[in-house]
C-alpha cells in the first residue's frame, strides 16, 4: 500500500494547506461576528467549498495515482458538461458531442499508461479530425464552422489542458526525489489557486487602474502585479520542499503560473461575457461552476508541465 510511502514534504505541505483553511475560516467567523450588519454569506460559502475541494484533492493525491487521474478526469467531465450546456449548440450535434465526451476517458487512459506520444496528439490531431468527420456524416452545414470550433475549443481547454495536470501526476516519482510527482501537482494547483486569491486580494486593497476593462472590470493592475510578485515569491519558497527546481527556475515557474493563471482567468471571463452568463454553474457554492474554478488552470497547467518536462524529463 503506497499510503505508507507518502513523501514527507507532501504531508507537510497538505498540513500547511489545511492550516491556511483553518485561518481563513477563523477570519470569516471573526468578520461575521464583529460586523453583523454586513453580508458575508458568499465569502463563507466560498471557504466551505474550499474545505470540500481541498479535502477531496488531498485524499486523491495521498491515496493513489490512479485515483488522482480519475479525479482530474471527473473535473474535465464536469467542466466540459458546463461548457456544452452553456454554449450554443445545434440539435444535430448531439452525436458529435457524444464523441467529444468520449475523448475524456480515452485521453486520461493514455495518461494512465504514460503514453506521452498519444497523450500529446490525441485531441489536437485525432479529435480535431474526427469531429468534423462525424459532423459531415450528419450533413448539417448550417453554422458548421462555429459549431466545430466551439466544440473543439472546449476539448482543448477543458480536457487537453487539464489532462496536463494528470500527466504531471503520471510522471515517474524519480524526477522529483523529495516529493514525487504528486508534489509537482500540488505545487502547480496550489500556486494557481493561490494566485487567484492573491490577485483578488491585492486588487481589492490597492486596485485602481483597470487592466482589461472591456473583458473583466474587476481586474486591476495592482491585483495583477501584486499577484505575480506574491505568487512568484511563494513559488521560490515552496520549490525546495515540493520540486527539484533551482532558485532561478522556481522564480520562472512562479512567473509562468501567475501570468498564465491570469490569462486563463480572463479568457474564461471573455467567454462568459460573450455568451452572456455570470457563472458557469452552481456546483461549488460561492465559486460558481467547475469551469469558474479551473479557469486559471487551463492556461497554467500545460505551460508549467512543459517547463518541468523540458527541464527534468
Amino acid at each position, binding site marked *: 500500500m503506497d499510503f505508507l510511502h507518502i513523501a514527507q514534504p507532501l504531508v507537510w505541505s497538505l498540513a500547511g494547506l489545511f492550516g491556511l483553511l483553518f485561518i481563513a475560516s477563523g477570519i470569516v467567523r471573526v468578520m461575521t461576528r464583529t460586523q453583523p450588519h454586513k453580508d458575508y454569506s458568499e465569502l463563507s460559502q466560498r471557504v466551505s467549498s474550499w474545505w470540500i475541494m481541498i479535502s477531496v484533492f488531498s485524499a486523491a493525491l495521498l491515496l493513489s495515482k490512479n485515483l488522482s487521474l480519475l479525479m482530474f478526469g471527473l473535473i474535465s*467531465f464536469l467542466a466540459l*458538461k458546463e461548457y456544452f*450546456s452553456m454554449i*450554443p449548440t445545434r*440539435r444535430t450535434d448531439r452525436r458529435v*458531442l*457524444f464523441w467529444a465526451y468520449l475523448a475524456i476517458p480515452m485521453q486520461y487512459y493514455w495518461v494512465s499508461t504514460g503514453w506521452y506520444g498519444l497523450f500529446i496528439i490525441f485531441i489536437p490531431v485525432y479529435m480535431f479530425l474526427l469531429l468534423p468527420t462525424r459532423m459531415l456524416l450528419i450533413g448539417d452545414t448550417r453554422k458548421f464552422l462555429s459549431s466545430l470550433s466551439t466544440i473543439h475549443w472546449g476539448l482543448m481547454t477543458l480536457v487537453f489542458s487539464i489532462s496536463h495536470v494528470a500527466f504531471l501526476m503520471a510522471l515517474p516519482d524519480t524526477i522529483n526525489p523529495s516529493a514525487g510527482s504528486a508534489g509537482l501537482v500540488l505545487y502547480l494547483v496550489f500556486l494557481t489557486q493561490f494566485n487567484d486569491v492573491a490577485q483578488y486580494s491585492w486588487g481589492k486593497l490597492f486596485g485602481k487602474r483597470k487592466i482589461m476593462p472591456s473583458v473583466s472590470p474587476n481586474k486591476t493592475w495592482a491585483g495583477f502585479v501584486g499577484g505575480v510578485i506574491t505568487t512568484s515569491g511563494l513559488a521560490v519558497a515552496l520549490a525546495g520542499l515540493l520540486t527539484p527546481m533551482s532558485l532561478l527556475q522556481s522564480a520562472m515557474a512562479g512567473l509562468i503560473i501567475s501570468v498564465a493563471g491570469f490569462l486563463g482567468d480572463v479568457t474564461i471571463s471573455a467567454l462568459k461575457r460573450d455568451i*452572456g*452568463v455570470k457563472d458557469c*454553474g452552481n456546483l461549488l457554492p460561492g465559486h460558481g461552476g467547475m469551469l469558474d474554478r479551473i479557469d486559471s488552470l487551463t492556461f497554467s497547467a500545460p505551460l508549467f508541465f512543459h517547463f518541468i518536462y523540458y527541464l527534468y524529463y
Partner: protein
Amino acid sequence: MTKLLRFIFFRMIVRFIVLVGLGLNIRRRELLPKQGPAIIVANHNSHLDTMVLMSLLEPALLDRVQPVAAMDYFMKNRLLAWFSSNILRIVPLARQFKAHDNPLKPVHDALEAGKILILFPEGSRGEPEQMKAFKKGIARLAQAHPEVPVIPVYMHGLGTALPKGEALFVPFFCDVFVGQARYYDNTRNDYLQQLQEQMYQLESEYKAGHAGGVY
C-alpha cells in the same frame, strides 16, 4: 419486491444519472409538494422528465407519486407494461375512448387516494424544447379537485440530453424552475390560460439567464 426494485431504480440508478450524467440547476425546490394529494404539471421534452421530477421529491414521498401516462404507449408490450405499472406506477390514461367513458376516472381516483401526480398537459413530448398549448384535461381535473394544489414546473435541457426518438443519451445540464402552487378558482378556460401563462413566465425566467441556447 417491486417496492424494493422501485426504490433501487429511483433512489439509486435515476439519482446517479441525474446527478452525474445530467447535473441540475433547480430554482425554488422548496415549492415542490411535501404531501399528497397534489398535481405537478410540467412541460414535456423527454422520457427523462418524469425521472428527474420523481428524483427531486423527498424520498418518503416515493410511494405516493405516480406519473400520468398514455396507455397506448406505456402499455404497448408486456415488458413495458410491467415496468410502467410496477416501477413507474403510472396512472394509465386512454387517449382514444368512447363518448360516454370518462378517461380521467383513474386520475380522479388517484387524487382521492392522496397521490402526487405528475402530469404533462402538452400531451406528448413533441419537438425538443418547444412548448405547446396545454390540453383542457388539467383544468377539468383542477375544477373537480379545487383543494388540490397544482404546481407548475418548467424544465429545460432534457430534450437535448435525450430527445424523442433517440436512444443515445448525451450529458447536459438541466434547469428545473418550480412555480407557485395554483388552486382552481374561476372558470376552466381562465384557469387553463393562467396556468399556461405561469409556465411561459417560468420559461422566460429561464431564458433571461441563458443567452446561449440553440443556433
